């Protein structure tokens, strides 16, 4: 727990700021119409389950768990021979990960202040500036590297930093219009100038661009990456990616060709997806990894695209092309450059620095942990080890050799964990450990072609067909680059199709209540899951390498039931992964008066309804069941 004083200070400053009429004002000054308004919102999510985020140090499922490490020097492996029998020298011990398990009450405790200033200079020119300030009160059981004697390299691998993220070496931010510290950030989600003249609209500046009719399923919505630092994608589901879609400096030109057709084009500075930092509540990258972000190699690149949208008769049509750097990036092993000797093995640090490995207690301690987390991260624990060895020959100086099969991999891994934890454990029986894995994140260019059509059904008034809107969207990305489950230097390159079928309907069930709004969606992806992870990494467990799956399918059912007067609204959002995972979020939205807005939502996640949890996406945040509450005051 920290930051209580900072929280009080922040709230005081915000209150002071709100006392100024300047926050909410409109009028004319020097011939410019201006309006300014905003809100302050307290946002919290209380945990409703005991599980902690396993990707964080203090949620690691092996913390305090004694594990047998059965290493050995295997003659066959060492000599590169596939012997019919095992010849070697066993080396075993036990190890207990020294992390202290957290016991959090909250996943999320933030205060947000947003203000929007709009200026109209003339009939043709206008400008919008929206500033967003976030303060994280960090009411969490935070990771303390000193408590586990960690000295992990990298800016983000000490005490938690909730907002800075630039790269391995430094803090700061990649977003050009953002300042951030370890528990605050201020940015401009919108800062643009509009010029509109007849059918032409030019919008220049920092902006979000969202295309497509599908909600939550991003088929055509590919212009912007996501900023996942705040509430991952687990905030109020009805808002889709409103808070996550990351703005980027861009020039967007749209031309209304006629009353039915519009051409929309953009060119924007590449801006990658921002993942939650290690040891922050919604981190989804195992914290035994150290990420070297190579954004600097792509930060001057330009993404661009166009969309043609219109109608032919009763059919709506869309055509889209985008050429972009995929904002999610791809990952692979990289040399750690950390020269830290294993206890009792002088000179080993120099060798390790040329491999992806770094000795630190925040790393992986055992083969069991290695394969458990490989499965959770949709990686191949066997081939991942082999690529670490073959792609980084220095590792062979430590007698590491490619292995054949999971048993040999475990034997070799445990040997390494024993030795790098201090070989003395062979005598005492109780070992230490920790090998961090360094990976780099690169960005690859791709072309996306997409089309979509829509149709509005007519039917008897009140029937299910009446005013039913159907949308179908499909995209094709040739030669898309994916992270290989083995983290090898050669990425996977595959053609990918992504499609979504969307059905929307207002249906009135009673005369006293407004109609219920239904959305049903089906997404089908041929190569990756909803988070972009290649499907060949699915299905790995502690006992087997991933088996892979053929395709990913997800179903969404969302409904909104306003109450009379719209003062209350009940929502339900369900995402079902057809391989046995489900996300359910019932929510209640209450607007008791013009200034106040309250939203409460409960997030339920189940990853093992019918199949291997490592084959569906829910496992990645299964631990995040929570009750969320947002209380906003607007001014």
């Amino acid at each position, binding site marked *: 727990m920290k930051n209580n004083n900072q929280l009080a200070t922040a709230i005081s400053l915000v209150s002071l700021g709100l006392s100024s009429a300047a926050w*909410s004002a*409109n009028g004319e000054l020097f011939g410019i*119409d*201006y*309006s300014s*308004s905003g*809100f302050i919102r307290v946002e919290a999510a209380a945990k409703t389950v005991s599980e902690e985020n396993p990707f964080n140090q203090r949620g690691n499922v092996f913390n305090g768990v004694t594990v047998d490490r059965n290493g050995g020097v295997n003659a066959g492996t060492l000599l590169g021979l596939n012997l019919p029998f095992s010849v070697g020298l066993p080396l075993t011990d036990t190890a207990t990960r020294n992390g202290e398990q957290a016991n959090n009450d909250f996943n999320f405790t933030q205060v947000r202040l*947003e203000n*929007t200033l709009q200026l*109209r200079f003339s009939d043709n020119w206008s400008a919008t500036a*929206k500033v967003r300030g976030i303060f994280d009160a960090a009411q969490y059981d935070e990771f303390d590297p000193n408590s586990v004697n960690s000295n992990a390299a990298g800016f983000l691998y000490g005490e938690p930093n909730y907002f800075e993220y630039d790269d391995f070496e430094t803090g700061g931010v990649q977003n050009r219009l953002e300042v951030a510290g370890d528990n605050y950030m201020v940015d401009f989600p919108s800062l643009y100038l*509009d010029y*509109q003249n*007849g*059918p032409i*609209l030019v919008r220049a500046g920092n902006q*979000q661009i*969202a*295309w*497509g*009719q599908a*909600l939550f399923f991003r088929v055509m*919505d590919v212009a912007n990456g996501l900023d996942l630092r705040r509430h991952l994608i687990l905030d109020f589901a*009805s808002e*889709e*990616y*409103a808070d996550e879609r990351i703005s980027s400096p861009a020039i967007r030109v*749209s031309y*209304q060709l006629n*009353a039915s057709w*519009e051409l*929309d084009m953009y060119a924007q500075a590449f801006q990658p997806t921002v993942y939650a930092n290690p040891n922050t509540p919604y981190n989804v990258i195992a914290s035994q990894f150290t990420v070297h972000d190579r954004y600097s190699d792509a930060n001057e690149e330009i993404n661009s695209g166009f969309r043609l*949208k219109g109608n032919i008769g009763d059919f*709506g049509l869309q055509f889209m092309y985008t050429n972009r750097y995929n904002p999610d990036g791809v990952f692979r092993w990289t040399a750690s450059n950390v020269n830290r000797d294993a206890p009792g093995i002088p000179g080993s640090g120099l060798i390790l620095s040329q491999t992806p490995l770094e000795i630190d207690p925040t790393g992986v301690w055992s083969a069991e942990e290695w394969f458990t987390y490989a499965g959770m991260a949709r990686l191949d624990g066997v081939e991942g080890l082999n690529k670490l060895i073959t792609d980084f020959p220095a590792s062979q100086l430590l007698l590491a050799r490619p292995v054949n099969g999971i048993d040999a991999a475990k034997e070799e891994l445990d040997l390494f964990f024993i030795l790098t934890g201090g070989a003395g454990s062979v005598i005492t029986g109780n070992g230490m450990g920790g090998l961090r894995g360094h990976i780099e994140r690169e960005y690859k260019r791709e072309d996306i072609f997409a089309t979509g059509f829509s149709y509005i059904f007519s039917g008897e*008034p*009140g*029937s299910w067909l*009446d*005013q*039913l*809107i159907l949308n179908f969207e499909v995209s094709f990305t040739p030669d898309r680059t994916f992270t290989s489950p083995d983290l090898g230097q050669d990425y996977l390159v595959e053609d990918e199709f992504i499609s979504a079928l969307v059905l*929307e309907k*207002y249906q*009135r*069930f*009673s*005369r*006293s209540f*407004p109609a219920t709004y239904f959305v049903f969606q089906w997404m089908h992806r041929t190569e990756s899951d909803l988070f972009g992870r290649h499907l060949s990494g699915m299905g790995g467990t502690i006992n087997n390498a991933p088996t892979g799956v053929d395709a990913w399918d997800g179903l969404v059912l969302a409904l909104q039931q*306003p109450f009379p*007067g*719209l*003062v209350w609204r009940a929502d339900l959002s369900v995402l079902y992964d057809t391989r046995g995972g489900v996300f359910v979020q019932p929510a209640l939205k209450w*607007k*008791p*008066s*013009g200034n106040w*807005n309250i939203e409460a939502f409960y997030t339920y996640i189940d990853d093992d309804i019918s199949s291997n949890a490592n084959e569906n996406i829910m496992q990645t945040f299964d631990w995040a069941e929570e009750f969320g509450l947002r209380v*906003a005051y*607007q001014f």
Partner: protein
Amino acid sequence: MHIKKYDTNFSRRRFMENTLKGVGAAGVLAPLWPLIANAGDVSKAYPDELLSIEMYTKGKVKPGDIITADNVEHVKELLDPIAYMHVKEMGRRIHIVEPVKDVSRIFPTEYLEATLRNQGKAVIGKDGNVYTKSGEPWIGGTPFPEPKNGVEAQYNLTLSWGRHDYSQYAVRDWDIDSSGDLSYQYDFVWTELNTTARTDGTVWKDKKDLLRYQSVFFTAPNDSAGTSFLNIWDYDQRKFPELHGYIPAFRRVRQFPTNQRFEPLVPGITLFLSDAWAAGDPLQTWGNYKIVGRQPMLGAIGSRNFHGGYHDNWEKPVHGGPKDQTFFDTYMELVPECIVVEAEPTGYARAPVGKKRVWIDARNQMYVAYVVYDRRGEMWKSFEPHYAMQDNDKMTRNDGSHPAWSWSSVHSHDIQSNRMSRFVQAKSVTGGYQSGYDPGDVDVFNKFLTIQAMQRLGG
């Protein structure tokens, strides 16, 4: 004085006869529209009891008086039942003013000219829509100045809502809850662009298959700003409009189903899409239209209801209700003849509305009162408009070369939840958007009435 030979019940009898016989021509002593066409003075069409509130009430109420709970019984039958309740039970006060004598002052000039020019040219086609005798979409003005049935009367409201080819209303809304407190306040802009039924007789950009483009976009408060909707109305009144909306959370314009028209656009407001101009839905999505009566009414139709010159932003003083802020000050006058039309929402399964009753001024065919009933037959809402020629003792605002005519404010009262939305057509609202009816050189279509515009206005 031509009226003395008529007793006070003469008009009532004549109205009843006309209603029963389905006589379309308005006027008691003489047909109304020839008089309007000749001189605009309709006094010869009605006896003095319908031209003077003092005569009508036998001296109990006269111009300059204020209707309060103490004297409202004298004009009870001249008010819709909810307006009567406002005065009787909620402390509303209504100022009585001299009635307008020059009928041209209750029309936009161009609209009246089109009405006169095109009189007798409208027919209802086999598909139920209004055409000229040569089968073209309507060419402007009131298609049926002397409506013979409810459908014709309703078409007079439907085809040209604001009676300008383009209207842009900067609207400021206050929502008063049952305890009389202000619970919500919104600023929004409402635009209407007719492609057919235009006073200039043209078809806009050859869009014969459409009636209008209409948009509404909210500019305040913060959580509603950017919420924008574009309705594209078919000329065929059997079809629902196409609805595109920008919801700030989605960051893009999406198409929405459009058959849910009995719900507020934003929380707390009692204005529904269906309410607009008492004709917010395509005409043939309702049915069972019938004229159920003719009667005089009190209507807020005179220029004193324009508050320009009295307030920088044309906003109005308020009074009444538990916190003395539920009602605008309104100035009503005797409307000699209203056609009372009822209709039912036959095209909306499980609609909460059972029927609507509209009181339409027979002179300009514009409604002066509108009450909605629920499915049980209980009164639910009133949507009381206030109109004005925009020239009063303080200022004149022209629409082209003539003083502008438009609505000035509305009381939208849900009496079942006792929530009042009252809104004015303001001079301007947050964002600097202004009311106006003459776009001049401004390309209002691209500025306010396209999907691209919704995206831009949304943010």
